[in-house]
């Protein structure tokens, strides 16, 4: 009986099984990391319960073949997200963030319910493998598009694509780090993009307009979020904006609508979960030791946290798309998807959009690298602050650095052996007919890169070149200055971005919540002023309402 129930409600195919596998791996790593990081927290039992419930609900959601079951598990994840964010230490902020996250995520679930309702109206079934409807044509008018958009909004909110992203940076800043690495950085991405891929590939037949829409949303997310990340002063918030920015690549990949782009998007989803949770874990390590996540107060931690530094470096290079790491491979596949979308484009608009998206995505990748240079410099390199005078090696405990190392190793393996391991095992079975436009010999190029580095080092040593560094006393107005007081932080340089012409006003607006759908939504409730005016507590007014209501009913019913 159990077996038949299982077959009835669940479906294990190539797409869902590798996502489920990913969920299990990330849950395990999070649990290991939490062992030490969360030690001493007051509600430890609840914490682990919520984590396990989240993992279970995610797996059920991914494997589900029934839309209602999917929705139930999906919605439950919003609740666990809410409860987990509430565990944050800084109380008023954590409560506000939890509320914001749950309003956006839980609210989008209502829209998903509506989308499922419309799908049921159109097809008469909740079974996902029985649904396949075209977006346009078919005589159903705008309804398929509405259903698709409703479900896509839920995916966007879960994964954090713009404009439903604003909970992620807040959450990254206030929630406990393992929670951030677990839900917004890995599980929610996997789920959101999984469902987006599922509905785009299997439930609906996409058309050009919708693909273009996805591409534009993705591109906008990439560039806008990375621009926000550039100017952040908080390590966790910066990573939070990158978590948003990377979603853009995945949505862009799925939006290309051709196999290579979709495969790239899915691969990027997996890669992102790997390096983004690695980055959040390393941020947790930094915070664990330095007791702060403000970039201005950090510096020179590479010596005391060498393992953390190496992991963070690998993950940073991956996220910036530097070969031979995994981020490069998936981004490169997405670019190929865009190029082939350009080549096969039927209309001028599509060609133009493809090229535009390609350029912006490349540019966004460059900006990502720039902001990670800032992060690496501000946290691990640069000068130490006064408060952290000890410079001896002081690595975090084993259970905290091990997950980072495992994830960093995955970044390398997925990059160098991309064809042999992840693509062959996970991605190609899920997306059929992937055709590469060019060739990329990952192993060979890695060897070449390695050889180049060794050659460089050899030349460097051979010639006896030594960095020349002279430290001198500095004077201001004849007074010697304490150099540790006026140290150069990693953030200062990037402040000029903020003050650059037109960007200045945009940044200022962004900081006041002008592009935050949650803050804007609040404004709608000034509508209640009108109703409040009518509820004035005067009995005759209320009686007049009643009379007017009756008149209206008489007009309709008693004619």
């Amino acid at each position, binding site marked *: 009986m159990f077996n038949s129930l299982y077959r009835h409600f669940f479906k294990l195919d190539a797409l869902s099984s590798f996502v489920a596998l990913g969920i299990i791996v990330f849950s395990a790593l999070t649990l290991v990391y939490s062992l030490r990081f969360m030690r001493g927290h007051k509600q430890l039992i609840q914490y682990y319960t919520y984590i396990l419930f989240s993992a279970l609900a995610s797996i059920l959601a991914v494997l589900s073949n029934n839309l*209602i079951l999917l*929705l*139930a*598990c999906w*919605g*439950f994840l*919003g*609740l666990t997200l*809410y409860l987990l964010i*509430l565990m944050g230490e800084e*109380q*008023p902020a*954590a*409560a*506000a963030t*939890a*509320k914001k996250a*749950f*309003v956006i995520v*839980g*609210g989008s679930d*209502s*829209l998903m*319910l*509506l989308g*499922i*309702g*419309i799908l*049921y*109206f159109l097809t008469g079934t909740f079974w996902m493998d029985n649904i396949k409807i075209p977006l346009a044509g078919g005589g159903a008018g705008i*309804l398929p598009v*509405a259903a698709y958009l409703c479900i896509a909004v839920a995916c966007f909110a879960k994964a954090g694509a713009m404009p439903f992203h604003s909970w992620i940076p807040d959450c990254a800043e206030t929630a406990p780090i393992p929670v951030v690495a677990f839900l917004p950085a890995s599980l929610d991405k996997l789920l959101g993009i999984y469902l987006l891929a599922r509905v785009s590939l299997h439930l609906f037949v996409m058309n050009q307009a919708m693909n273009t829409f996805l591409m534009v949303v993705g591109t906008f997310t990439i560039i806008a979020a990375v621009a926000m990340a550039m100017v952040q002063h908080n390590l966790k918030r910066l990573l939070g904006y990158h978590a948003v920015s990377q979603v853009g690549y995945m949505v862009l990949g799925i939006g290309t609508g051709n196999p290579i782009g979709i495969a790239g998007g899915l691969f990027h989803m997996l890669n992102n979960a790997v390096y983004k949770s690695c980055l959040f874990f390393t941020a947790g390590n930094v915070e664990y030791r330095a007791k702060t996540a403000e970039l201005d107060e950090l510096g020179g931690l590479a010596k005391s946290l060498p393992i953390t530094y190496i992991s963070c470096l690998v993950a940073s290079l991956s996220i910036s798309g530097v070969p031979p790491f995994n981020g490069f491979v998936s981004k490169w596949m997405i670019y190929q998807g865009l190029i082939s979308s350009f080549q096969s484009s039927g209309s001028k608009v599509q060609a133009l959009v493809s090229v535009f998206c390609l350029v912006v995505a490349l540019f966004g990748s460059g900006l990502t690298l720039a902001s990670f240079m800032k992060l690496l410099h501000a946290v691990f390199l640069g000068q130490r602050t006064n408060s952290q005078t000890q410079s001896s090696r002081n690595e975090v405990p084993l259970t905290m650095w091990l997950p980072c190392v495992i994830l960093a190793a995955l970044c390398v393996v997925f990059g160098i052996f991309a064809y042999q391991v992840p693509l062959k095992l996970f991605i190609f079975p899920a997306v059929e007919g992937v055709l590469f436009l060019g060739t990329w010999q990952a192993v060979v190029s890695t060897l070449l890169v390695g050889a180049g580095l060794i050659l460089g080092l050899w030349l460097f040593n051979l010639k006896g070149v030594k960095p020349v560094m002279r430290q001198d006393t500095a004077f201001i107005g004849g007074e010697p200055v304490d150099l540790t007081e006026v140290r150069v932080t990693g953030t200062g340089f990037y402040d000029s971005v903020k003050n650059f012409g037109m960007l200045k006003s945009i940044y200022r607006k962004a900081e006041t919540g002008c592009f935050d759908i949650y803050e804007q939504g609040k404004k709608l*409730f000034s*509508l*209640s*002023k009108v*109703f*409040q005016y009518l*509820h004035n*507590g005067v*009995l005759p*007014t*209320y*009686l007049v*309402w*009643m009379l*007017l*209501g*009756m008149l209206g*009913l*008489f007009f*309709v*019913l*008693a*004619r």
Partner: protein
Amino acid sequence: MSGLLNFILIPLGAAFLVALTGNRMKKAGNFIFILAAFLLCALSLYLVKSVGAQKIILFKAGGWLPPLGISMVADGLAVLVLVTVNIVSLTVAFYSLRYMQRYTDVWKFQSLFLLMLAGMNGVILSGDLFNMYVFLEVASISAYALVAFGVEPEGLEASFRYLVMGSLASIFVLLGIALLYGYCSTLNMADIALVLSSNPKGLLVGFVAVLFLAGLGLKAAIVPFHAWLPDAHSSAPSPVSAMLSGVLIKTLGIYTLARIFFNVLGVSSKTLLVLMVLGIISMAVGAIMAISQSDIKRMFAYSSISQIGYIVFALGIGTPLAIFGGLFHLFNHAMFKSLLFLNAGSIEYSTGARNLNKMGGLSRRLPVTGFTSLVGSMGISGIPPLGGFWSKLIIIIAAAQAGYIGFATIAAVVSIITLAYYLKFQSFVFFGRLNKAWDGIKEVPLSMKLPMLFLAVICVVSGILLLPCFRPLLESAGGVLVSTVQYKDAVIAAIKW
């Protein structure tokens, strides 16, 4: 079967006994009060079984055959509402034992409470319109008095407003009954349905429909007849609010409305459309008003208007699935709204305050209240796997299935707003930084915790009502409303038998 009479005799008798003894012997009063509530709850659960077997149970008062004699009818719908009312009233009665100690003359409260319960049970079981009206007034008048029980200025004012508007509504209902009696020469509901089905309906039925809709709509607090509710429900003592918001508006409003419109007058597509539109307006206005409230109980009161809107909307869709969802939502809403009002009562009991903005971080001081209110809030916002999720799901799916995509969209958007204001309640009251003023407060006593925990458990597991073994309860209730002639035929068959 004379068992049906117990549902009215027990609370009436207990009300009398409590009034007799409660003044002198407080413990005896308490004992009778709880015993009556417990007996009613047990009897109503037992009735589920017997109605499940016989489909309909008819009681003929004094052996006189209807339509000449008075009859009481328990069918699927009546049983569902009866069970809901009596479960909630038992819980609230238990809670009130401790909570009401702050007031003087508790026996008066208990007596009025039992009278209100007698009125509600009577409304549910009554087989003819005039008795329904009488019990409606019994319940309403006790409710007016209960709202004013705290004798504080705002309670008195709210009670007066409620009294005026409620009496007006009762007059409309009475006028409607009189006109129907003039037309059909009978008061028995099944008989009226029989007469109306053979005679042309004409303008009169439309006119009567409006009278009923306005009168009963006011009892149910459908916009624009809702204005009394936010004042009355927020200024009453919390157990009373729990009863009013939890079951009274559903029994006096939704149940009677459904019974009269679906089983007696018969519904046309126009009436259904009117119900749907009223439901949509109620849910939207209630939610928009709720989000800007800073008084906890006022927020809950507006939320009741909004949720009643969902039920009316579901009834207005009129498909079997929608009616099923609407009745399920009625049950769920009774549970979580009374739970939330009990939570508000506990907060008030511990802190003495009702203003959201002054609180914060109370979950550390009031863990049980905090946890149960989280369950209630999540339930009413429709978060899976709680019961409220399933009923909301069924209503929206049913609306979409029937092709009302626009209305379904509004319902979905309103549920986002619902989530937003319940999260506002949670984060303002229970999370965030603890206000220094509440540093020394204590959790409420056990006798107040238990009812909250009980309701919270029901909120969590009420989804099991959808499982095949429990589904007949809701399905038979929905079946009564789906087919217009079933009630009439069943009652007439039961009379002959």
